[in-house]
């Protein structure tokens, strides 16, 4: 069952971007791209060669590979639909957080390796916001661990062992909001970043991968899709009610993932992007929610 989730994630992750784009298109009165567009893009990119900046070294080439590998490994630690993850042990949530951080480090290092002013700016912004978002992510996991009494994601996110809607609903509501904000920031969505912009000077994530192409770009796109799945599945895990039936639980989890990406699409459609200097404020807000959840879970 754990391996099934991993396969599900690897196969369905690129679909999430397609759903977000369709939701946004609907709000804008447009048809939108096909749901499967990202699959087509990745397939196209995989067939292409690559051009490397003359100033770059192996660091530049390693970035996308390490980024994708780290994110995929982090997914192996995430439980889904109330089932244990492929790997589960005490403290695995720290490993998951650091794997995501490692992926980011590889991307940032690759961006800096090009020596471009744009990419350096993007890297600086990415790291500045990540320095705030990572503690909030860990702070958000803490109440789940406190309630479950164990620090393994597989138990923390299980309605049977950990927090459930019967007793801990205020904690779960606060955490799902906090994780949603973290998801927006970590996955470079509006209001933190604009995934569609072509304006280098305003970009955060996109500008760091400007010089990548071909297979490497496919890895980056796929890695980003997996990361979005990671966070959507995390929120879905927080929201998951305690269900007897295995299939009902799976359906509810998938519905949770769908709800998260639709919510992202709606947020992107109804509001403008924040000015860069105000992004830390939404991260702080998420941190406040997570801290409040911590207080509520200490009994």
């Amino acid at each position, binding site marked *: 069952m754990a391996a099934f989730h991993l396969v599900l994630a690897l196969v369905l992750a690129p679909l999430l971007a397609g759903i977000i784009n369709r939701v946004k298109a609907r709000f804008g*009165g447009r048809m939108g791209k096909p749901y499967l567009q990202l699959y087509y893009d990745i397939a196209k990119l995989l067939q292409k060669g690559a051009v490397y900046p003359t100033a770059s070294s192996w660091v530049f080439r390693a970035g996308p590979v390490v980024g994708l590998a780290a994110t995929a490994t982090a997914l192996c630690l995430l439980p889904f639909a109330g089932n244990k993850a492929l790997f589960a042990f005490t403290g695995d949530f720290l490993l998951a957080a650091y794997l995501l951080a490692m992926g980011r480090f590889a991307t940032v290092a690759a961006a800096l390796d090009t020596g471009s002013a744009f990419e350096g700016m993007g890297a600086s912004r990415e790291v500045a916001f990540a320095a705030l978002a990572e503690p909030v992510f860990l702070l958000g996991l803490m109440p789940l661990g406190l309630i479950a009494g164990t620090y393994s994601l597989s138990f923390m996110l299980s309605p049977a062992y950990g927090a459930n809607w019967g007793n801990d609903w205020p904690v779960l509501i606060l955490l799902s909001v906090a994780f949603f904000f973290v998801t927006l920031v970590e996955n470079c969505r509006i209001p933190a970043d604009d995934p569609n912009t072509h*304006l280098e*000077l305003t970009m955060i994530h996109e500008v760091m991968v400007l010089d990548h192409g071909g297979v490497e770009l496919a890895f980056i796109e796929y890695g980003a899709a997996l990361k979005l799945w990671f966070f959507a599945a995390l929120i879905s895990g927080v929201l998951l009610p305690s269900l007897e039936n295995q299939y009902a639980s799976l359906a509810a989890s998938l519905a949770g993932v769908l709800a998260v990406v639709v919510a992202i699409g709606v947020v992107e459609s109804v509001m403008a*992007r924040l000015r860069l200097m105000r992004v830390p404020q939404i991260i702080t807000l998420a941190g406040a929610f997570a801290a409040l959840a911590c207080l509520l879970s200490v009994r």
Partner: protein
Amino acid sequence: MANHITLMNGTSVPVHSIPSLGIGEFSQWLTDELHNRARVCAFFAGPQENDSQNNRTSRMLYAVLARDAENSLAVAATPAPQAYPAFTPAMPALHLFERELYEETGIEPTGHPWLKPVRFPATPHGPAIGIADFFTVTGEDVHEVAVGPIHAGIIECGHFRFQCQGEVVMHLEISLGYHHRGIEKALQGGPTKRTLPFMETLAGDTTIGHSWAYSTIIEALAHLPVAPRGQALRAVALELERLANHTGDLGALAGDIGYLPTSAFCGRLRGDFLNITALLCGNRFGRNLVCPGGTAVAADAALCRTMVERLHLAAKDVEGAANLMWRTGSVLSRMMGIGTVPEKAARDLGLVGPAARASGLPCDARSTHPLPGMRGHDLHTHTLQAGDVFARATMRHKEIQESVAFITRMLQSLPEGEVYSHPTPGCSNTPPLAPHTLAVALVEGWRGEVCHVAMTGAQGNFARYKVMDPSFHNWIGLAMALRGQQISDFPLCNKSFNLSYCGHDL
């Protein structure tokens, strides 16, 4: 004797009637006029004239100023020296004119703080393309970001050099001129068959603005009356051009901040306005519409009714799209207080158009310098005080509303009669022009004041034809707006001005 001659917009004066002042007197006159809130429309070197008696060539420097309060233009001249003390330190509005003068003629404004290339001409004497001496800031934490001249996206060439401390821009230097095509030079000796197409395409988004200014110049120089119905249709086309571009700008501003609904709606609506122009003349950008004497195409009552109907349909949707944006808190928070140009800076730098009006300067050539036959049609000139991106955005919305009302009024009461006064309609035939005459035409295009100045030689051909696109005045405004701002806000500020590269580069 008066130290200048005054004329109305769209009229001409004999060149010999323009007073020639000594350089000191000329400088004093400029200082006094600018102090009394006159604006510099054009400052340029006249044609080379052969002085057969002394066996040398001589030329004059001309300044055309707009006195908005008196609804008149003032012109004076001074014999061109080899060098003279620069006017820029006292009158910053002249900074780009003096740079241009130096580059084109070699007349040196000594003490000019910023004598750098304006354009990169394809001439042996011009600076090598892209070579300019940029200001640099040195010190801890300071870094330089260079953007362009080739950009990501389908936009024209321009180079932007930011001196930043972290995310804060200390200074932005804009280097243009990559699109220099030598239009003014090509116009000399005209008018020819090619002159009008040149005018229509020198800044493609201001086709009506430039072709109307050119036609006014010809009418003034040939003493050709303009057909009232044609003049009214030109005014309608000018406002349609404004509607299309302002709507496109509102959508582009929304797009830059990632606000999708308005971005998507305005993108479509811009096309609706362009299509109304196409309904009138067959071309979405209004080419082959304006010609000396009137317009090349007529409009019957049925067409006018259809145009009004389609205008109101599109205008209603624009209202919805714009109000959607103004009701969204995140949009307001993103736009307010960004890229502020204070009123004093706007006045000192000589900004024009919606950008100047958003900073509180009531300059609008439609009201203050109506073209012949356009008196009494003046529109309400809105001004705002904030001078930020939000003010420039809301200014566009206000002007959209004003233009819709204006077009409706005009189309419902078009003067009867022919649309042209010239016996052979069509754009390639021009009547003979008066020799040794100077004519000025100001048209308030959507981006601001379009100014054309023409001087004819002995045979009635253009000895000098000066084109001032509003972008020429306003690029410096963008550089000033960026001072102390976040570098990530540059695209938004840039879009709020939406200046033309080719209109500046000519």
